[in-house]
């Protein structure tokens, strides 16, 4: 269908940024969630690293806020088609968190898990080397609950559902275990530049099914 065009259709939205396929730029910060926004009491809040680690570790809100923080200015891309450029966050790099655990060699994937029961899966390599952080401040203010506050994992090079709101911890796994939207047919990896929105868009589908055979 590469030759199909809609007669008379003209681009209306101009962006100074390079957009992934099928995305448009917004300056708003839209919200997408499957259910009510959890209200999280900071006195009970904790963040955990668990699963395939030698010793699990956890931080209270107070302890977590004492970790070294950095500024991050990522572009973000939501599977619902909007992209937002040059956002302003402050938070803790996942690299910093990983200094506190010894991973078992078979740990290859991560399940991000959240207050409210949300989960999403990413390869471990996609959280390392400055690629991901736990965001606590947005535009200099504590992150609003509807955007995932008090803390949200941000993995900006993947579609934004891979950036778990209300994040409670990371569980290290040997296999790539589908999370909430992934079980509902969304992509296992979610690269916006390859437009991997849905499971059928994943380029490993053919090889994955032949391996199963």
């Amino acid at each position, binding site marked *: *269908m590469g030759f*199909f*065009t*809609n*007669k*008379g*259709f*003209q*681009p*209306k*939205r101009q962006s100074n940024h390079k957009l992934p*396929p*099928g*995305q*448009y730029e*917004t300056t*708003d*910060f*839209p*919200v*997408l*969630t*499957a*259910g*009510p*926004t*959890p209200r999280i009491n900071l006195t009970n809040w904790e963040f955990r690293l668990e699963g395939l680690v030698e010793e699990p570790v956890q931080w209270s809100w107070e302890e977590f806020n004492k970790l070294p923080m950095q500024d991050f200015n990522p572009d973000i891309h939501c599977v*619902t*088609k*909007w992209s937002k450029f040059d956002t302003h966050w402050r938070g803790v790099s996942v690299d910093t968190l990983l200094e506190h655990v010894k991973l078992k060699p078979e740990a290859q994937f991560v399940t991000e898990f959240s207050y*409210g029961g949300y989960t999403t899966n990413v390869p471990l390599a996609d959280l390392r080397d400055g690629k991901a952080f736990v965001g606590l401040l947005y535009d200099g203010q504590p992150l609003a609950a*509807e955007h995932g506050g008090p803390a949200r994992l941000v993995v900006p090079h993947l579609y934004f559902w891979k950036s778990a709101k209300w994040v409670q911890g990371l569980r290290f796994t040997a296999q790539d275990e589908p999370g909430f*939207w992934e*079980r*509902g*047919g969304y992509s296992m990896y979610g690269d916006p530049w390859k437009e991997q*929105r*849905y499971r*059928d*868009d994943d380029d490993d589908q053919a090889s994955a099914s032949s391996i199963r055979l």
Partner: protein
Amino acid sequence: MSRVAWQLATVKSIKQETPHVKSFTLSLPNWTPHLAGQHYDLRLTAEGGYQAERSYSIASPPEQTGEIELTVEIIADGEVSGYLNEGVAVGDELEVRGPIGGYFVWPGEASAPPLLLVGGGSGVVPLMAMLRHRQRLGLRTPAVLLFSVRTPEEVIYQAELEALAKDDPSFTLLLDYTRQAPPGWAGYHRRIDAAMLAEVVSRFGDAQPQAFACGPTGLVESVANGLQAAGLQAESILTERFGPTGS
């Protein structure tokens, strides 16, 4: 062919629902049954290859085979909705793929709990698919639709909803006009609030309804919070939010 591959649909009919909302019925060469609440992606391609994509909820029930109805809010200066409004006629082709989404859906099982549907503006579209599916199945699952609009001219599907409420005593239509109500209106005439939601929930007696809320972010936030305050469990509240996307 994969389930969500792009396909070329043909516009079968176009209906003006309200001054800013149109329904497009599309014939699909590769139609597959959807779940009430799912959506399709629609893609426009300009000469030169530029493409724009948006998601639109399916308004038709899965019993309407071979075609889908997409109800589209025409946004001022909207890139995609503006073209659909002005540039598309019956017989034209449009690229779509779907059905998509496995969460905000109502499968329509006879054993399902009562339905509490809350829609704001064009957020009523996926809820309409659920009501149409329920009607086609002949189910009498108690259902309430609380439908919030700004003015009387913005009530999408008004005639159909009122006819359904008249014919089916197990369905209740509650319209809420937030800005301007029709003359002599005795119903809700304010933004949806906790007291209104508590009243609506009390209509179900002891039964715990399954709630679906769809509309602008602010409305859905307050509905989800208000329903929890009225005693619903978080697991019984499914939401779909239309952020300010300007599409």
